[in-house]
């Protein structure tokens, strides 16, 4: 038992409890967490739990199962913090927070040392209301961005589909970032610290590209090939 429970550290933070997982297979981590809770049920009763799962890659089923098991023990899972974009996406899809008030040391390092390589996150589906995708690089979406969905990238954003939600490119201040889409009628676009007005849906949408023009304004233009 001693060996299992040492896989997890649980401590109090401002927003409830934070469980930090050591590197181990997910099944072991899950069992260790539930074992710790079952040891002291009264302590955990009704608590709000955040999890820092490190680089663990978690699928929807993993989190759903754990959330159900926690809810049976009267614990509410509200946040999953992860270094893996896949796990972050999973958590976001389930409506869980992916940031907690305490900044992670890893994140602080990112602020000091911006990523310069051209990594991109590829999302091959329509993003529905309530989904938020953040990535420290470019984001490419094959699908629509529905109203209420948000895309936040440090680099450029390319959408092969319709944009009706919010897109923020160059979120760390890169004013040369751009956003392009087959139909760019978003309710809000942002590049660096510029915010656009609403773009009206068009009858006959054409591909457009939005960028910051020479006057320093965010502007959308039709896409001219060549």
């Amino acid at each position, binding site marked *: 038992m001693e060996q299992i429970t040492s896989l997890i550290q649980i401590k109090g933070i401002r927003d409830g409890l934070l469980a930090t997982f050591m590197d181990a297979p997910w099944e072991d981590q899950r069992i260790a967490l539930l074992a710790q809770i079952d040891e002291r049920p009264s302590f955990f009763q009704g608590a709000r739990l955040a999890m820092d799962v490190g680089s663990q890659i978690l699928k*929807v*089923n993993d989190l*759903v199962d754990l959330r*159900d098991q926690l*809810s049976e023990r009267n614990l509410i899972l509200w946040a999953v913090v992860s270094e893996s974009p896949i796990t972050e996406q999973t958590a976001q*899809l389930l409506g869980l927070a992916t940031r907690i008030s305490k900044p992670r040391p890893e994140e602080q390092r990112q602020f000091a040392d911006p990523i310069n390589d051209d990594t991109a996150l590829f999302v091959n589906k329509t993003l*529905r209301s309530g989904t938020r995708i953040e990535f420290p690089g470019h984001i490419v979406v094959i699908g629509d961005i529905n*109203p*209420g969905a948000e895309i936040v990238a440090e680099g450029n954003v390319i959408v092969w589909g319709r944009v*009706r939600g919010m897109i923020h490119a160059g979120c760390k201040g890169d004013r040369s970032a751009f956003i392009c889409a087959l139909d760019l009628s978003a309710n809000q676009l942002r590049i660096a610290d510029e915010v656009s007005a609403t773009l009206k849906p068009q009858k006959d949408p054409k591909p457009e590209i939005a960028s910051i023009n020479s006057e320093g304004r965010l502007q959308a233009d039709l896409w001219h090939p060549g």
Partner: protein
Amino acid sequence: MTAQVITITSGKGGVGKTTAVANLATAIAADGKKVVCIDGDIGLRNLDVVMGLENRIVYDIVDVIEGRCKLKQAMIRDKHFPEMYLIPAAQTRDKNAVSPTDMIRICNDLRSDADFVIIDSPAGIERGFRNAIAAADRVIVVTNPEVSAVRDADRVVGILEAEEKGNPALILNRLNQALVRNNDMLSAEDVLDLLGIQLIGIVPEDESVIIASNRGAPVVNDPKSRAGQAFRNIARRIQGQDVPFIDLDQQSGLWGAIQKLAGRK
């Protein structure tokens, strides 16, 4: 018998989930199937009122879960259809009195004994919604042609996809064709374009629905109501029949009646 468990949900409140459950259950029961409805809205129950069974409640779903009665004792038989039952929600408790595992257990107990189990989900995407979809074989999302309702429906569809609950079907409720013609209301195409899920029925705006709900007699029992017709058609589609969609541009009034007599419609 192995019942199919169907959950009716929406995200936004007030779009007609409970009305849809009462009407679909009644229409399926009228087709001779055994149907059990479960009110999943613990603390804000109202399916019993819409079905006109309020004064017959002795035990509710929380009594079953907490072992104060047998499942059979909490099943209230409908006034008109002996093969239709309601398991009411508790009014004096909240959503935390039920867990997803409880719902799965109850539905599994019902499976051998019914053709359809229809669960009325509460609004929202929290615990009550989780409970309602936990046991579902199939989920039907109800929305109105309003921007806010469609956005909430989109959120719910996203969650259902993430939880791998299969492809939800869509009921578009309270569509007013006259407003759509004047571009004052989202059309069915607009809604489907955004949600991208399969349409199982369009229910036209019809004040007889409200009158029927207040009387505790679902509108499907009214052969003249167009909403009733739409719900009967959806019920057939749920049972696997291929029913053509009704023409919402249908002429009403004298000219429509003449056309009907002439067999043109």
